[in-house]
């Protein structure tokens, strides 16, 4: 998707609080799950974000890191993961559901394609002149 739309759309990863830190309230018990402790400082979260982006080969995507107050996470209700598209007008053009079930990249792509479509011309027929005769 980035290769297709990366010139016209700004893709931005927003790294938020760990969903399943190993010392958190719901650690991930899946085999080969990343073993990550809940960061206790912004520098720790920043470092883990870097490891994540490199580990998942996502370095080409721009990324920002949420503050330890988790304000952006809260404003977007992003936990554990979520997709949004913000239109050129600054309004929400697509609001995905909460992950994992609501995390749907195909919906995001559809929204991108719709957002990038040129505006349709006004095809309404001109109003008839007053007093016109057939």
């Amino acid at each position: 998707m980035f290769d297709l739309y990366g010139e016209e759309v700004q893709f931005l990863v927003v790294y938020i609080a760990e969903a399943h830190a190993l010392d958190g309230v719901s650690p991930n018990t899946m085999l080969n799950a990343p073993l990550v402790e809940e960061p206790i400082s912004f520098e720790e979260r920043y470092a883990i974000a870097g490891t994540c982006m490199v580990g998942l080969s996502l370095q080409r995507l721009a990324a920002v890191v949420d503050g330890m107050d988790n304000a952006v996470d809260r404003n977007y209700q992003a936990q554990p993961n979520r997709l949004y598209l913000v239109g050129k007008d600054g309004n929400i053009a697509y609001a995905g559901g909460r992950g994992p079930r609501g995390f749907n990249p195909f919906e995001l792509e559809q929204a991108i394609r719709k957002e990038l479509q040129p505006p349709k011309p006004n095809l309404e027929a001109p109003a008839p002149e007053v007093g016109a005769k057939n």
Partner: protein
Amino acid sequence: MMFGAIAFPLALLFFQQETPVSVSPPTVWELLQSKYDTDQDSKISSEEHGRGLGAFSNLDADGDGFITQTDLEAPTGGASRRSQERENKMRNQRVAPPKVGELAPDFELRVLVHEEKAENSSKKASSQPRNVKAAKEKEEVKAKTILLSSFAGEKPVALIFGSYT
């Protein structure tokens, strides 16, 4: 759910990927023991751990004041209780997410700069001693922020929220 578990297929959607080579990871106990068991007595005290009582109590399943391998192999009864507490806490903090058509909540967050990019930026020619200028430019690159509203009128922004776990 893991951003990692979702981001692998997401990464495939964004980029062509090579098949990753699997390496056997350490267990949770092996990781924690190597980091915190400084006196190597096969148990981790809260003093050795030093990451706050919340995180310590999440790991000390039997509540005996030490994190041991047994704690980490304990049944998930405690985890279920903590998950419910977390869910309750999240529910209390929940605000309505922004909807289609609404103005996107603005934010200004620090950009994640990979070490090699920071190094490359700091290698530009300068008249100052190279090590001083390089260190300064590296810090400037790392302190850069992105303001979401700066893209308005320019291009749409696809926001991908997630974490490694």
